[in-house]
């Protein structure tokens, strides 16, 4: 990794955004893990927990690199292009009967969106240090996309009707 410029002005703002992006992804995966633990889908809960840990490592790496001691309070909510940060899975993506493949499918989409987000900044008129950092992050996200695709090859693809429950916990009666 090339040495990056000292945190200042727009570069620091960009890195704070990148940190928030990772943090929000971490929080969402942790939420999903908790939801699926509660609903006795331990296998997928474990996978989401793993994804949360990976995103938390990415967030920590940004803190270390910027030599920030940590964010004392949650960073302000940025105005993202969408409703949430590009790497945050939509809150309604989960299902209690989902399988590991579905969780990876969600992660794949999130990594692709993050890659697109950084590519957009790299191609923008942002200051050079910001564009350089964005380019580097886009290539990191591209690597994550590749890794998740590899991971998905090792996980069975769900059969049709995976969400059919003969005795659903909640139904109109």
């Amino acid at each position, binding site marked *: 990794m090339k040495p990056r410029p000292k945190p200042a002005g727009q570069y620091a703002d960009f890195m704070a955004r990148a940190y928030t992006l990772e943090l929000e992804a971490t929080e969402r995966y942790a939420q999903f893990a908790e939801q699926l633990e509660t*609903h006795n889908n331990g296998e997928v809960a474990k996978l989401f927990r793993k994804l949360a840990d990976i995103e938390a490592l990415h967030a920590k790496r940004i803190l270390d690199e910027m030599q920030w001691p940590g964010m004392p*309070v949650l960073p302000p*909510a940025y105005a993202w292009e969408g*409703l949430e940060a590009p790497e945050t899975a*939509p809150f*309604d993506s*989960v299902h209690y009967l989902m399988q590991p493949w579905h969780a990876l499918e969600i992660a794949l989409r999130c990594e692709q969106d993050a890659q697109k987000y950084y590519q957009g900044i790299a191609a923008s008129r942002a200051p050079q240090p910001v564009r350089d950092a964005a380019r580097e992050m886009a290539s990191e996200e591209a690597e994550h996309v590749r890794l998740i695709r590899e991971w998905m090859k090792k996980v069975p693809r769900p059969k049709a009707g995976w969400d059919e429950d003969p005795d659903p916990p909640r*139904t*109109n009666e």
Partner: protein
Amino acid sequence: MNVPLTAVQTAPLQARDFKSDYKPVWCPGCGDYSVLSAVTKALAMLNLRPENVAVVSGIGCSSRIPAYTTCYGFHGVHGRALPAATGLKAARPDLTVLVASGDGDGYSIGGNHFLHACRRNVDLTYIVMDNHVYGMTKGQPSPTTEPDWCSKLAPGGTGVREFHPLVIALASGANFIARAFSGDPNGCANLIAEAVRHPGFSFIEVLSPCVTFRPEQRGWKDAAHPAPVAPTDDPGRAARRLMTDDGFNIGVLYKGKRAAFSPGSAASARPQDLEKAFAL
């Protein structure tokens, strides 16, 4: 060294400090998870401490929220969260009081309390998680359900016009009216924080999809959009806006200037004496 207690500095809390160890039992994908997240983020943004906040609720999926926070909580009777919260705020004006409800709890059995809470304008923040259905009791139509929503329990739909909570809140005197969307938890957190800061009765309707009984509500994320106009303090203008609203305008829609109601005098009796009066 003698340090006065008031000089003790406490570190600002983070959203997670407002989350209790109880795991929510909502269906995976339920919008209420995001509302919980938004509430905890808002409390952190406001630099509040859990011991200075009370979350009061009624009955229903949304009303589980108090248990999932580290604040004081009161999980009350169906539809009766607002009177309990009003009493609490009158007795303890120092507390920040949030009231959580759903469209069934808040607009049906609690509908009358809603009108009078707006009218009284006590400094409360009322968060209604609206999913247009009774989720906890397995999918009956609620006051905000569309008349043609067809289900096993209401074949062909109810044919009954839906309730318009924002218009009713305005007509009844609410001092702050906003709509949020659970798919935008950061935006929702900002709106909750703004509602808490605004004096008087603040009402936030949060569109919070029920993925189990109303899976089509996943489409709300495409329908929700920022309100194209700035908030107004003119009730007439707000009324026109709300009456022609598409139901998906997100943001602050009305910010009134009424002074919050507070009891005019200090308590005239001690709780112990009151208890005696109720002794059997």
